[in-house]
C-alpha cells in the first residue's frame, strides 16, 4: 500500500498542484473543497487508478466518498483489492 500511496501522492502533486513539495497536500485534504480537481481532473484520476494502480472504477463508484482525498482513494483501492 505504501508504494501505491507514494505513487498516488506524486500523481496528485505533480498533475494538479504542479509541485514536488510534499507539504502542499495533506492526506485528508478534500480535492473538491480545495479546488484541486475539476471534472476533467476526476477523469484523469480514474485513468490513473485504472492504468497505473490496476484499480477499475465503475460509474456508480465515482463519488466523493471514494475519490475526494488521498486517504479516501487509498481506502477505495483497499476495498477493491478484497
Amino acid at each position, binding site marked *: 500500500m505504501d508504494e501505491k500511496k507514494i505513487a498516488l501522492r506524486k500523481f496528485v502533486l*505533480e498533475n494538479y498542484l504542479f509541485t514536488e513539495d510534499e507539504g502542499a497536500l495533506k492526506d485528508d485534504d478534500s480535492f473538491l473543497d480545495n479546488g484541486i480537481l*475539476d471534472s*476533467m481532473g476526476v477523469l484523469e484520476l480514474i485513468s490513473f487508478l485504472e492504468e497505473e494502480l490496476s484499480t477499475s472504477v465503475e460509474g456508480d463508484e465515482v463519488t466523493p466518498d471514494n475519490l475526494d482525498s488521498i486517504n479516501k482513494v487509498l481506502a477505495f483501492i483497499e476495498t477493491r483489492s478484497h
Partner: protein
Amino acid sequence: MCGFAGIFDRAVHGGISPPAELLRDMGHNIRHRGPDDEGIYSEQGFGCVHRRLSIIDLATGQQPMLSQDANLVLVFNGEIFNFVELREQLVTQGYQFTTQSDTEVILHLYQRDGLDFVSHLNGQFAIALWDKRIQQLLLIRDRVGICPLFYTIDQGQLVFGSEVKALKPALSNGLSLSAEALDQIFTFWAPVSPHTIFKNVFEVPPGHMMVVDRSTIKSIQYWEWSYDEDFSQASEEQSIGELHDLLVDATKIRLRSDVPVGVYLSGGLDSSSIVALIHKYGNVPLRTFSLNFDQGNFDEANFQQALVKKLGTEHSNIMVGADDIARAFEDTIYHTEAPILRTAPVPMGLLSGLVKDNNFKVVLTGEGADEVFGGYDIFKEAKVRRFWSRNPNSQWRPLLLKRLYPYLNLPSGNHNVYLKSFFGQALDSPDSVCFSHIPRWTTTAKAKTFFSDDLNSHLRNKAMDVLMESLPSKISSYDAFNRAQYIESKTLMSGYLLNSQGDRMLMKNSVEGRFPFLDHRLIEFASKLHPKTKMKGMNEKYVLKKVMSRYVPDEIIQRSKQPYRAPDVNTGLNTLAGEEFQYYLSDSMLGQSGFFSSGKVAMLQKKAEKGKPLSTSESQALTGILSTQIVYESFVKN
C-alpha cells in the same frame, strides 16, 4: 479604420516641437493599421502622425486634417456612419466643406458644439483633436470601445496612440509589465479599464473623452451602457417592429463605403442576420467569409453553407487546425499586445488574412448581439444557478446545467457533486453583484497557481477589488439579468472581444470591422426591454429571433447556441506545447521575466507533452503563460 499617434508636450512655456522623424517612427510601428498613406503634423508643443486605410473619400480624406483657419488639428481612426446626415445639416447651417470625408464633419461639429459634438456621432472612433487657440487636446473613444486609444505621461509629455507599440519610440524608459494587470487578465481575460498590461499606460475608456491642457487632465464620461429600472411598456409586437427598423438602419449605414464591403458568416444567428439583412436591403453584392476548423466539434460549416446556398453569396472560407494556430501564435500576440488565455483570437487573425487576400478592406460582423440581447450561455447559467440557489439541496435543479453544457466532460456517477463544486459557487449569495460570473472567473483564476512568489509579493490590489471599485453603484439596482449583461460588456467585450479578438485581429491585416449590433441606438433600445423579452424561459435572444425569423432559415433560428471556440493547446508537434515555444518557457526566459514559477511551468509542460488532454484551467494557464512571455519578449526585453 486607421491608426494615429502623437505627443503633447505640456511644458508651461510651450515645449518642444515633436521631431517629424520620431512621429514617423511612431506611425511606422502601426503601419498595418494604415498602409495607404502617412501624414505628419508638428508645431511647438504638439505633433501627430496618421496612418491611413482609405475607405471613404479616397481622393481628399488625408489626415491630419486642419480647420480652414488652421486652429484645429484632427487625427481620427474609425468611421462616422451618420456623416451624410450630419454633413447635410451643417451645410444647411452655413458650414463649408472642402472634402467629402467624415473627418471634416467632426471638425465642423466641434466648431459648432464644442465638447458636446461627440453626442451626435453614430460610429466607431478614436479621435485626437488639438485646439491650438486654447492649447487643449481632446482624446475621445467611441461608446463601446471598438477603436483603441492609449496614452501615457512620460516626463511631462502626454504620448498617445492607437496601439501601445506606437507610443514606444517616444518613451524615455521603455515599457514594463504590470503585475496587477496580469492578475486581472488571469481572472477576467482582460485588464480592468483604464489599465493595460503595461505599467502606467492607460486606455481612454469606452464612452469617455480626456480633456488635456498644460495643467490638468480631465476624464469625462459622455455615454454609459446603462439599464433603466423601469422597463419599456411597449407590446411585444411594437418592440419587434422597432427593433426591425433599427437593425435595418444600423446595417444600412454601415454599408457606406467607397470600397467593397464583405461580411463574416459564422453560421450562428447573429452573423446570419447581418448577411440576410444586407441581402434584403443592402443593394450591394454579397461577399461572405467564414472560418472552419478541422476539429469537427468546433466547426459550423453546415450552417454556413445553408445560408450561402439560400442567399447565393459569393463565399470564401479558411480551414484552421491546431498547427495553424501554433504557427500564427507569436504574430498574434505581437498584435494583441496583451496576454490571452484562449487561442480564439488566432483564427480571427487568419480570417482577416483571407479577407485581405481577396482585396476587401471592410467586413460587417455579428459581434455584440450576445451582449446586447443576452445571448451567451453565461446568462442562462446564472438563471439556472439562481433558480438552484432557492433550493440548494435539490437533486434535479443542478442537472439543468448539464443540459446547458452537453459538452461538459462530467464523470459518470454522481454528477451533482461535481456540478456543485463548479457551478455551486456563490450559491448562498445570489444577489451579489458578480454572482453570474463567479464560476468563470474562479476557473480562470486557477491559472494563477503558476504565478511566481515574486509576482505574488507585488500584488497590492486584488483583481476583484479593482473591478468592484470600477463598477457604478447603481448596478445593484439593475435586474439580475441586466447586471450580468453589464458585467459581460464591461469586462469581456470591450477589453477582450473587441480588442484582442476584434480590432487587433482585423487591423493586423488592414481590415476594418463594422458591428451593426453595437449601434448605440440598438443598445439603448435593448437596455429598456424587459429581460423576459430578451430571454424567454431559456430561449435566448428571443426578440431578435422574432425579428429575424422572416429573413433567416428556421434551422439557424432554432439551432442551439454554439459559442465561438477554437482548438486549445493540443498535443504533438507544432502546437503551443511544441518545441518552438520551448524558448519562451525555458528556465532562463521565465527567470528573466520573473512572472511565473519555472518549476511549476515545467510540470505543466511535461503534462502537456505527455499527450494527455489538459483541463480548461490548465490549457488557459499554458496559453496565458506563453502569451505573457511573448509580450515580455516583444515589448519589454527588446
